[in-house]
């Protein structure tokens, strides 16, 4: 059996050397661990992931501080003190985050009293954030169900369809677990990214299924060709999002950096899921499943 020729000079992989069970084990184990992490966080905090100020309520303020001891100035200026202080690259500007329960007008006047220049305030009250939370969760659920239905309608075969849906599910779950592990908070941007993963990550799965189901030639020939294209696609997207995340983080553009970061997580997970989980489900179906 020929080995898969991968782009970018990646080492060759010969799938026939591995059993389906071996291939499936890794992504499924990771999915299980992720679900356990999310479940644990959900049970202890009441939410599947650490929520940002847009969902819990709170204030994010961008201030310019003159002078050298900016950190000290910031700590003295505010009551209560900010829960996080994040510097913006190349400027004397800091992004301060405050928990809920403090009026944004009060914080603004505290900042002005301390001689800071306030250049942006983003404040959400707790009950408004709660609404956003429900909508965000609902949105992700609706998007996922919609995508699943569409996939089943397009392929009209159970195993290949469920393989795509399962991959996509894992593509969302693993990044969310990763957010929990790395202490990244859920923002509106990350919700957008999760929805984007649903649309984006299935591309390579659809490509793989399409090649295996609808093309002539052996399973390996079709699959390897899909792999060559699919890996190029996903790596291109990862590169774009990685660079965007780095630039946006440096400039303190929260929305762009959280969209980019979560998409990097999701697309990387997707590489694994498509070519281990989806691939072996398809192989099992092609060689054994169909005859049952």
């Amino acid at each position, binding site marked *: 059996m020929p080995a898969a020729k991968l782009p970018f000079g990646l080492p060759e992989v010969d799938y026939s050397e591995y059993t389906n069970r071996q291939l499936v084990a890794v992504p499924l184990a990771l999915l299980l661990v992720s679900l356990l992490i999310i479940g644990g966080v959900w049970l202890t905090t009441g939410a599947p992931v650490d929520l940002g100020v847009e969902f819990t309520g709170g204030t994010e303020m961008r201030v310019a501080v003159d002078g050298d001891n900016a950190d000290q100035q910031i700590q003295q200026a505010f009551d209560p003190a900010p829960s996080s202080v994040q510097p913006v690259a190349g400027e004397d500007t800091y992004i301060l985050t405050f928990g809920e329960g403090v009026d944004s007008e009060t914080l603004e006047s505290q900042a002005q009293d301390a001689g800071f220049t306030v250049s942006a305030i983003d404040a959400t009250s707790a009950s408004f954030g709660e609404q956003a939370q429900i909508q965000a969760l609902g949105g992700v659920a609706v998007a996922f169900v919609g995508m699943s239905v569409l996939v089943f309608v397009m392929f009209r075969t159970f195993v290949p369809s469920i393989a795509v849906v399962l991959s996509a599910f894992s593509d969302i779950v693993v990044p969310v677990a990763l957010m929990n592990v790395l202490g990244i908070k859920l923002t509106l941007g990350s919700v957008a990214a999760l929805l984007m993963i649903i649309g984006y990550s299935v591309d390579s799965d659809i490509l793989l299924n399409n090649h295996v189901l609808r093309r002539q030639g052996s399973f390996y020939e079709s699959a390897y060709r899909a792999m060559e294209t699919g890996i190029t696609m996903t*790596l291109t997207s990862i590169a774009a999002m990685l660079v965007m995340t780095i630039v946006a983080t440096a400039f303190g553009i929260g929305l762009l950096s959280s969209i980019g970061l979560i998409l990097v997580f999701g697309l990387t997970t997707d590489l694994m899921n498509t070519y281990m989980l989806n691939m072996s489900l398809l192989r099992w179906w092609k060689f054994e499943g169909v005859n049952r």
Partner: protein
Amino acid sequence: MADEESTWDRIKDNWRIVLLVVVVLASTFALFSPTLASGSGAGSTDAEATASSGGLTNIQYGLELSGGTRIQAPLVGVHATGVELSNDTSTEAVRSNVAANIENASASDVTVRYAGEYSGTVQQTTVVEVTARNVTAAELGTALSEAGYEYEDTQNRVSKVTQQTAVSILRQKVNEAGLSGGSVRTVGGDVVVVEIPNANQSQVRDLVASRGQVLIQAYHRNENGTYVRTTVMDSDDLQQVGNARQLEGGRGAEVGVIVAEDSAQDVQQGFVDTGLAQEGGTECRYEQAPNQTEPCILLVQDGQVLNSFGVRETLAQPMRDGTWADDPRFSLTTGNLSTAQEVAINLRAGALPAELDLDSNSMLYIDPSQSERFKTDSLLAGIAAVLAVSGVVFARYRRVEVAGPMIITALSEVVVLWGIAAAIGYPIDLSVIAGFIAAIGTGVDDLIIIADEVMSQGEVSSQRVFQSRFRKAFWVIGAAAATTIVALSPLAILSLGQLRGFAIFTILGVLVGVLITRPAYGDILRALLTGEH
């Protein structure tokens, strides 16, 4: 002749490229043409007409990229639909019966509205609405049942009619306050969004925080000799509200009003009945001796007495004669000019039917200098992403004729999206820019699929081979596009504020890509690979 024919054939064969060029040119026109500059605003609805013009281009920038304040909050209130009231029940009775069963509401918080059309909004059934704080839909339901009224459904938000009225009054307030470019709209069903460029948070808060209900009341003794307040006019009775102006001599300010013709008689009668128009006029001592004063006029805003004053004989006499109603002018005095301006705005716009729930709000303030920085920084992030994509694509194909057109095609998609934004006057925000970047991402993905498919299994020898391979590639692209659209459509509808632009432009990008740019890339590739031009 033969030459001309072949030119025509060539255009026909490459119609997808021609279409792309035409669309890109049209988008460039939409972006830069000065003729569209003013028209673009008119074409858009109020909903999207935030924004300041971008100067060189016709692009309108949203709040994050132009600076200003946005407050989002729901309106306070709950309502019941399909309430069954028998014909002989008076509205007054319903209001007090319902209020009696709700702890936090009084009769004045309860509105009863029969089915019908209210300034453009059709209401199918009879609605009972409570616009007091801390009242839940369940409490309203219980109150209705206890009072013996049947209803279909209760909801934890104000009715459509109330919402529309509130939005149009808020719009008027924003305009009256001289805050140019402001917009008021609703998202996600019940959240009202007030967006004002170049205003800071306290300016906007002050404007929308209160209902702005101004009442002109008589403070007088009733038959039993105790002092009561009787409302003699409110903003509904007025036909015209003048500008606030400083009084000569520096003490206080005033707002001149003209009472509407149909209300003039009633207002006049009110003045006479309450003793305001008594002979010789009245001298008001409300502030010094509220229990001994002659009848006073109280200027009341949101329940707070702003000023109290007496009536001069020059006004009282024509009221007693009944001639005042022929030319019903009146002047409201206040302590200072800014209060007078506030009163004038509130009188012109009228009172909000329900309060904005600022305890449950989301506020965004961006300083203009910050928005400028966001503009350049997000542009840099976008360019960096494009460079990354180009690098990867070149590394993979190592052929300029494959990778070059790929990048150019993907960028043309962004030009088309900018053009659409300029043409429909959609304000560009950070989230829209994220949508542009996402469009490049999905776009290049699809172009890779096309390139790989077309170049697979050796050289592309003929048109026919190309066509069949292209069609195969297109199935995958169509399927991928459909899933992206399905996945992002919830965001395009939900009220998750800023993300709407992201969803709308990602979806638009996918559509533009599938319908126009990606097929054209196929043609470009064919021309370059088959050697047929």
